[in-house]
């Protein structure tokens, strides 16, 4: 199966024309639009996406397995997870959290020494990642909420969901919909990008260090970049009352999105000396991954990924033959899942597609040294710990660079307020105008 762009590439001139239209629409229809109307339109659109019988959901479930390679069961499961965070109510909560009140977007609101108003830029370019469906959609919505127009550059790997979503938004609210356009072009088209990026006030981009620095070279000051991130699980509980439950939740976090998200755990660290050894947990985890395989089957991986997984299995196998303290559990069928229990605590990013390493630790504090080289990349930790120790462990993890701690099983479903990369989301899009009345 060849996965490839569904949308035709937009040409340089087409993009220029689209931007002209977006800027015109923004100044005419967005700048004075009440934010409650914007939130209502988004809410209505999202409700359709939360309804499994709606035409947009049906179309997404038909097309996305072909374009992403993800199984239809997985897609049916994750689409509600993605969109349930974008209801009007939740978005309003986010505005309150980050701006004080959503009204600050409409008018001057009181503050300690006067008044302030939040003003969004005229044009935001959102450059989406393609690793999992729905990635970056939140930024697109935030762009509309702060009353900007937005040009969305969808990834050439996954561009069908943004396209279908915006079409459904247009049906609900054509005026709001005229402030967003979804395009795609091959990365590294320098001429197009130089001509395009200069016209935006803000660029929100996901990508590798190289692609982000290439964008920054063209657009210097106004880039919010989300680079590659890694997450991991940590079991710091001496007494695990329900090992199977914990293993099931851990396996769920590994299986979701086929482990391709920045919140997917790459490694599970387990502090030894508790009631459950790392090898016992490994075995349990393998069994639970097999269970999830039936409920949420693994998608189709590229040949190169399966090759990498086979190499990981071979390395584990030969370490075992060499008498090293390594255990390998591999799915009988193909490359569905792989669990390797390995005494070497070095952090190693996963091959993805449900390939996980379980590594025992003597103490929590080893992580400081182990993760020091990974500090800029750390995102989330799925933590299992005693209630009394939870906050203290979270404090330690925060100190070494982690920006989100949550229970295992919840890593892939961050709440609306979570700070991707540790920074505010919507608040980073606006500038504040202060007013002191005479």
């Amino acid at each position, binding site marked *: 199966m060849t996965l490839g762009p569904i949308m035709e590439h937009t040409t340089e001139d087409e993009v220029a024309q689209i931007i002209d239209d977006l800027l015109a629409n923004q100044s005419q229809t967005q700048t004075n639009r009440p934010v409650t109307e914007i939130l209502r339109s988004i809410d209505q659109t999202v409700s359709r996406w939360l309804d499994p019988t709606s035409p947009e959901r049906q179309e997404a479930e038909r097309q996305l397995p072909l374009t992403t390679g993800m199984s239809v069961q997985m897609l049916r499961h994750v689409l509600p997870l993605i969109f349930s965070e974008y209801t009007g109510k939740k978005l309003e909560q986010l505005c309150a959290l980050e701006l004080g009140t959503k009204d600050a977007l409409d008018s001057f609101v009181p503050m300690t020494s006067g008044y302030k108003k939040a003003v969004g830029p005229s044009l935001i370019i959102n450059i989406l990642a393609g690793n999992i469906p729905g990635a970056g959609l939140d930024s697109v919505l935030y762009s509309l909420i702060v009353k900007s127009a937005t040009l969305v550059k969808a990834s050439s790997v996954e561009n069908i969901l943004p396209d279908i979503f915006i079409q459904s938004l247009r049906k609900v609210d054509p005026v709001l919909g005229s402030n967003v356009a979804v395009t795609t072009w091959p990365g590294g088209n320098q001429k197009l990008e130089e001509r395009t990026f200069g016209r935006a006030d803000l660029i929100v981009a996901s990508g590798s260090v190289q692609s982000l620095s290439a964008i920054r070279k063209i657009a210097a000051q106004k880039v919010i970049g989300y680079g590659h991130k890694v997450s991991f699980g940590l079991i710091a509980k001496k007494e695990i009352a329900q090992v199977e439950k914990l293993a099931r939740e851990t396996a769920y976090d590994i299986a979701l999105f086929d482990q391709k998200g920045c919140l997917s755990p790459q490694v599970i660290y387990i502090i030894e000396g508790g009631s459950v050894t790392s090898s016992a947990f490994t075995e349990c985890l393998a069994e639970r991954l097999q269970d999830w395989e039936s409920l949420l089957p693994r998608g189709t991986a590229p040949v190169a990924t399966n*090759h990498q997984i086979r190499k990981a299995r071979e390395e584990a196998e030969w370490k075992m033959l060499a008498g090293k303290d390594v255990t390998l559990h591999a799915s009988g069928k193909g490359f569905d899942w792989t669990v390797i229990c390995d005494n070497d605590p070095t952090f190693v990013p996963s091959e993805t597609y449900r390939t996980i390493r379980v590594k025992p630790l003597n103490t929590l504090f080893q992580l400081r040294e182990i993760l020091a080289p990974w500090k800029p990349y750390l995102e989330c930790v799925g933590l299992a710990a005693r209630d009394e120790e939870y906050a203290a462990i979270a404090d330690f993890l925060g100190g070494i660079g982690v920006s989100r701690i949550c229970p295992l099983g919840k890593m892939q479903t961050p709440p609306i307020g979570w700070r991707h990369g540790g920074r505010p989301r919507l608040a980073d899009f606006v500038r504040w105008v202060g007013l002191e009345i005479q």
Partner: protein
Amino acid sequence: MKGTLVFLFICSIPQSSRFERGRNPSPIVDSLSVSFYGLRHVNDHKQLIENQVLDFIKEPRPDQFNSLALSVFAFQFEKNEAYRRFCTSRNKTPSNVNSWKTIPAVPTVAFKELDLCCGPPERIFLTSGTTEGKEKRGRHLLTNTDLYQASSMSHFGQCVVPDRPQLHFLNLIPSPQTQPYSSLALMAEWAAKNFGTTQARWFINSEGIHLDPFASALEEAERDNRPVCILGVTSALVVFFDWCSNNQKIFALPRGSRIMDTGGDKGKTRTISRKGFLQACWKYLKVPGYYCVNEYGMTEMCSQFYDHVLYNRFRKSNESRYKIGPAWARTLVVNAESLDEVRPGERGILRHVDLANCGSVSAIQTDDVGYATGDGFEIVGRSIGTEARGCSLMLDEFLSAQ
């Protein structure tokens, strides 16, 4: 049964062999000890197998390859415990493997984890392993250096110096003194000794590549009209070509001069296409393409594969360039996921079955991408990882930041 076996083996062992390893039975009990010595000699399965492979190298009989490959497999299965466990876990044993194509192949990573050796080692080679960061080095233990020499020199002779010219060897390779664990360095030393007219000269040591003396040596060769054989690591030759370009130096080596390059680019210098490389050989050295032979080999394997351009030229054949191996090594192209053989001409990853590796493991699975063509194969790349997302991208980015 054992008695019969002894009888048969005694008949087939050449008389001189008992002196080959420097053993000198005491003359006092010479006649008595012959039978005991013969027994010990005969029960030395390793020596038997090695002799069989050496004989095959001296006089290849392609129709015998499969049965010899299976004998080597049976020997390795018996002598190498880790390999035996690997094979049995896949339900592959000498009793049910009938073809060299189904001999269980060991991935190169295995050489990093343990020593795969079927007898006491005479020599150890280490892989360079620097492109992937702090990776451990692979170890290849040789039980018989003579076998490595016989195999490497025979095929080198056929592919690089088929015309047996009088050549001076200029090696743009670290010498065995600089890198005592390099299989390439040792091979280059032997090549110069066996096929060169004088002592080889080496132009890379621990301090780096010495381009000025190399250039002087080339100038000398031009002046004296002495053809040379340059054995070089590809990346070092690229550095030399860039040096020539920057210093506006051009050489015109005498007719018959040739270049054997190896090692790929290993990511250390700028990458160069094969075509670009051949053009540079002509531009800066006046060595035409058919005298430029690329070698594909690895520390884990005793045999090497060469571009067959020069071999073909002297056979007056016009086939386009691809890699050929010696008669005692065969290559299978397999699917990267299933490891099953691909359809003829289809791309896959290369598996080599090298009988000269009888002291370690003869069937080796690589990650090198290629396809079968003609009597050999062509390589497309050293890794299939280019399409991979996730881990390899993450790791690449992380490592380049270090």
